[in-house]
């Protein structure tokens, strides 16, 4: 299961839970004999305290887990032994300094733009995004990614950049490291 599938599943479960709570409450929205509003409110407040604590614990846990290791590479430090690819976005094409990369070794993409903002997105052989960063005039974003699967990778623009934004595509090949099975 890739990251998108995990996100999709968690989202569906989250939305379904919200929907179930609403359906439950709406189904119990009729007047109940003996339902004292003050008592119900006291109970609701008590439940809310636990609900708040549960969300807080979940939030802290997810924050810790998702930020360690920090998902954005250090922008100042060059990675020793990495393959380096200079990427320049133009209206409306991508210029890469290398179109053949090796799997298993980290790749540093130094991404910038010659004109307007672009979004440098790498699509894997299964047409799912594997990594992205913005290409911005006057700045160079450093994206580090280690390819594990050989194959053809597509580069698309994910920041709207004008008339031919949707046609701004390129591709590169990732080959297996020497000694690896193809």
């Amino acid at each position: 299961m890739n990251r998108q599938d995990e996100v999709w599943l968690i989202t569906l479960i989250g939305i379904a839970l919200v929907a179930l709570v609403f359906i439950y409450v709406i189904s119990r929205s009729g007047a109940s004999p003996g339902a004292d509003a003050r008592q119900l409110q006291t109970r609701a407040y008590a439940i809310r305290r636990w609900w708040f604590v549960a969300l807080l614990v979940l939030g802290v846990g997810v924050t810790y887990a998702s930020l360690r290791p920090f998902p954005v590479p250090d922008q100042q430090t060059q990675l020793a032994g990495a393959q380096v690819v200079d990427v320049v976005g133009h209206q409306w094409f991508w210029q890469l300094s290398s179109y053949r990369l090796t799997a298993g070794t980290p790749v540093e993409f130094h991404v910038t733009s010659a004109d307007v903002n672009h979004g440098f997105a790498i699509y894997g052989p299964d047409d799912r995004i594997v990594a992205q960063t913005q290409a911005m005039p006057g700045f160079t974003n450093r994206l580090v990614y280690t390819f594990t699967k050989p194959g053809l990778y597509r580069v698309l623009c994910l920041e709207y950049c004008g008339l031919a934004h949707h046609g701004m595509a390129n591709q590169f090949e990732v080959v297996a490291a020497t000694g690896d099975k193809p």
Partner: protein
Amino acid sequence: MSALHPDNETLTRGEGLVLNLYVISALAVVVVMMLFGLIMRMAQGTWINVPPDIFYQLMTAHGAGMVGTVGLASSAVMWFFLRKYVRLHVAMFAANYVLFMLGALAILAAVFIGGYAGGWTFLYPLPVHSMGVWSVNSAALFMVGYLLIGVGFLVFYLDAMLAIIRSYGNLGRGLGLQWLFGGDLDKTHPPAVVASSMVVIVNSLGILGGAIVLVMCLINAYVPSLALNALLVKNLIYFFGHVFINASIYMAVIAVYELLPRFSGRLWTVSRPFLWAWALTTVMVLIVYPHHLLMDYVMPHWMLVMGQIISYTSGLPVFVVTAYGALANVYRSGIRWSVPAQLAMLSMFGWAAGIVPAIIDGTISVNQVMHNTQWVPGHFHFYLLLGVLPMVLALMFHLIDARRPAGGAVLRLGLPLYLLGGLIFVGAFLAAGHVSAPRRYAAHLPQWVPYDQVGSIGAILVIVAVLLFATYIIVGLLGAPGNATAHAAR
């Protein structure tokens, strides 16, 4: 003070006229913008052929039009309820409308006459670097349109700000900050005043941020040698855009606070958690915008971390206070499920459920594979279409409810159609985002087309429902005798 708290919601003739203009204009623009959206989805779905230049013009108009109109309609909600507690000037409310219309005209002319298609976010330097597709003058006219709309909102907010200060002493007291840590909490303090105090603070700052960046871009358009820092401009634009659209939600939610209790028979009073939620939201909405810049790795990393964490904490007030409060208000209440009550409840669901994919996308490692895919329009359409619009519609049905109790086809057909269509529509976006389909593309790869087609079907259902609502509301506003002079109290 009691005179400022009328039991009814009577409108003078002038107030009724201005409010009718807001409601009818908002409905008309929303329908047209939805049709623009449908055209885009059908073009992506290969059912119709739309040239890219027209597609991106429609996309620009749709974005600017929807954000602006949601803001306009939400400000009508805030005005309608806030004026019960403080003395607002209808002339300022009318001035907002006039400036909005002038701005909208400028934007429409820039897009459909000048060919401007730089997106509603006018991300520098695209407006002045179109590769000859549109002129600098068109881009400037678009930005002037934004400025006019911004000035209109500021006029309205300044009037509201002065009114709240006159009645409560200062904005902090309007927010109820004096009761955060103790004291004798005044339970009669209106939630509408709390929400309005928050909105006038944050959106005045948001609009000022927008005005600064618009003026910077306008100067650069005619004096290109004064080049701008693209990252700074991006920060200012997303600060302004995020605050503006969120302020719309916070204005519109007043309709839920005000209307739901009337049908459930239970008061929605302020409490300390409620006041804490609004106080924290005031701060969070101003500092959460870096979650739009998570893929700008040159941003200071502490800001990216802040963007993620504040995205998470921003969900707490919704989940723990507002949506939870609505559920508690309704549970075993014997609520009368009128159309406004149903819409209020739907809005709570749409808001709470819609922020689930939004919050998840605020995680940096998720954003790396979801940013600017259709996941993004998936989540913001969720809480705008199924959250904010129902809040606004709740007020509109409330306005006509006393004269023309909604029922029949509206109840039986409109609401289920709206909910079903809305879920299909946003579901198609989210599903397409999950398979990495990009947003803002005039044409999609074949594997993404089925999602576009399903989304188009959802959009058609939504538009049919909204047409039904709009017709019913407009006929109700214009048709009943005396509609412009008074609105009967419930």
